[in-house]
């Protein structure tokens, strides 16, 4: 079971003088339970790819398969939709109901589930994002703080119980604690339900910390995909694409430049563990 991108190309305004390839010949697979971080500049094709995986755009070349269902085919697409949850940038702008509980229930209700099942899902989802039903269920979504609104919007997607959760910059505009709450929620959801996560982010630190695999996009092409250790070793490549390395990588490089033999590490914990251990033996 997986999302498979098979040589996917998408051209905006195909056939016109303004036609432009947003993504070209992408081959990528997201296995069940994966945590894939997607990084790249504005205009690298990340958001187009998100829409292709959610079936909102149809590829102009190649195929997108979700658990074997071809999103290019209308019937199969309909069957695949509930398996993929999309969270767009600033999802709180899409909150619209009178109460948080109603807003979270909107998706599952439309799936045609029984009312008891809808309510059970709403309760679970709200619990997961840290907005307990009994305290927040009857509140207006518009009375929530920025971070809470974001979590309410996330709960609406989680309540659909997708097998694949795809998030486009889910932490943008949030304060540090809000960012952390969202990241922990996503990681917790994955652990609890086993769903796969695809997260587009500009924060190298967050991607380094949470992703199992990283895909690097540039000008619509997949430049490299691999484990964080592999990706962050490609210092020169990332720099040439205008991407900043996470602080622990840069610190490790600065120490190597001074003659210290630092292994490839990309998280704060790993670098600290190495340096502290080294201190004991010297």
């Amino acid at each position, binding site marked *: 079971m997986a999302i498979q991108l098979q040589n996917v190309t998408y051209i905006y305004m195909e056939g016109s003088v303004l036609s432009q390839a947003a993504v070209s010949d992408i081959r990528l697979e997201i296995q069940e339970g994966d945590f894939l971080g997607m990084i790249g*500049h504005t205009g690298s094709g990340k958001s187009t790819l998100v829409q292709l995986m959610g079936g909102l755009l149809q590829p102009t070349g190649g195929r997108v398969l979700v658990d074997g269902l071809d999103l290019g085919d209308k019937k199969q697409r309909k069957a695949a939709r509930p398996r993929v949850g999309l969270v767009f940038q600033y999802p709180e702008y899409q909150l619209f109901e009178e109460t948080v509980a109603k807003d979270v229930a909107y998706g599952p209700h439309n799936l045609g589930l029984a009312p008891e099942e809808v309510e059970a899902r709403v309760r679970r989802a709200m619990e997961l994002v840290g907005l307990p039903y009994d305290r927040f269920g009857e509140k207006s979504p518009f009375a929530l703080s920025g971070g809470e609104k974001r979590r309410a919007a996330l709960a609406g997607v989680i309540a659909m119980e997708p097998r694949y959760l795809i998030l486009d910059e889910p932490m943008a*505009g949030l*304060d540090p604690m*809000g960012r952390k709450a969202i990241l922990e929620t996503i990681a917790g959801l994955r652990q609890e339900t086993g769903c796969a996560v695809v997260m587009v982010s500009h924060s190298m630190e967050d991607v380094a910390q949470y992703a199992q695999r990283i895909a690097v996009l540039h000008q619509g092409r997949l430049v490299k995909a691999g484990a964080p250790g592999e990706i962050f070793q490609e210092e020169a490549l990332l720099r040439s694409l205008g991407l900043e390395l996470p*602080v622990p990588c840069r610190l490790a490089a600065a120490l190597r430049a001074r003659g210290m033999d630092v292994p490839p590490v990309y998280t*704060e914990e790993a670098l600290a563990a190495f340096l502290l251990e080294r201190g004991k033996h010297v």
Partner: protein
Amino acid sequence: MITLDHVSYQYDRQDAALNDVSLSIADGELVAIVGHNGSGKSTLAKHLNALLLPYAGKVLVDGLDTSDPENTLAIRQKVGMVFQNPDNQLVTTIVEEDVAFGPENLGIPSGEIRRRVDEALAAVGMEAFAKKAPHMLSGGQKQRVAIAGMLAMNPQVLVLDEATAMLDPQGRRDVLEIVGRLHKKGITVIMITQHMSEAALCDRIIVLSGGHMVLDGPPRSVFAQEDILRKAGLDLPPVVRMGALLNAGGMSLPLCLDVEELAEAIWQYSCKM
């Protein structure tokens, strides 16, 4: 010089958004105002050019009281604001017209406007885009045009209200570089931000929490107050956090603000062992 004297503000029927805040910002300072969502930092920013008027207390800009409507125009010419969403700030269909919009409304002669527009676009590195349509620009480029529009007004103070929040890393670097240049030229810059690594670049950091000012000082002294920052819903910038992690493990490193400084401190420390 901007002075807030016991300023409080509250939106309709809500808790105080600003609660008895007093501070002053001298000419030429580069200041970051940080705080969690809802801490009052944007409310404070809007007090700096009379977009909001204090409920209690006083805001003085070069001695002009913002509560006096007679002063509003003079204050707005002194203090320019750039907001978060680049799409909400550009009003015309051509970049240079947008930059000229402010000075035109001041009734400045056209030759002088031309000069100001050219200078302002050069200051943000957007000369080549003078005749382009704003909607064809990236978010970072739009923000640079919005800054140019403010510069064309010849302000003494530039307030950036989370102006980098919606930008990608490149756009953010570009805006920060411009901020550095303007600061060197003597313009007072006040950055409202949630990015602690941006705050680390400023001379002074003011921390708000729940409408109160909880810290005010240079980055090194503010980041040394980890407990207060955490209570205020904030985090240390990654480099400082890394140093703190090593110190918690038994090293004794000074507080470092950038990667090179921290690498050197770790290197010195390990040489002494």
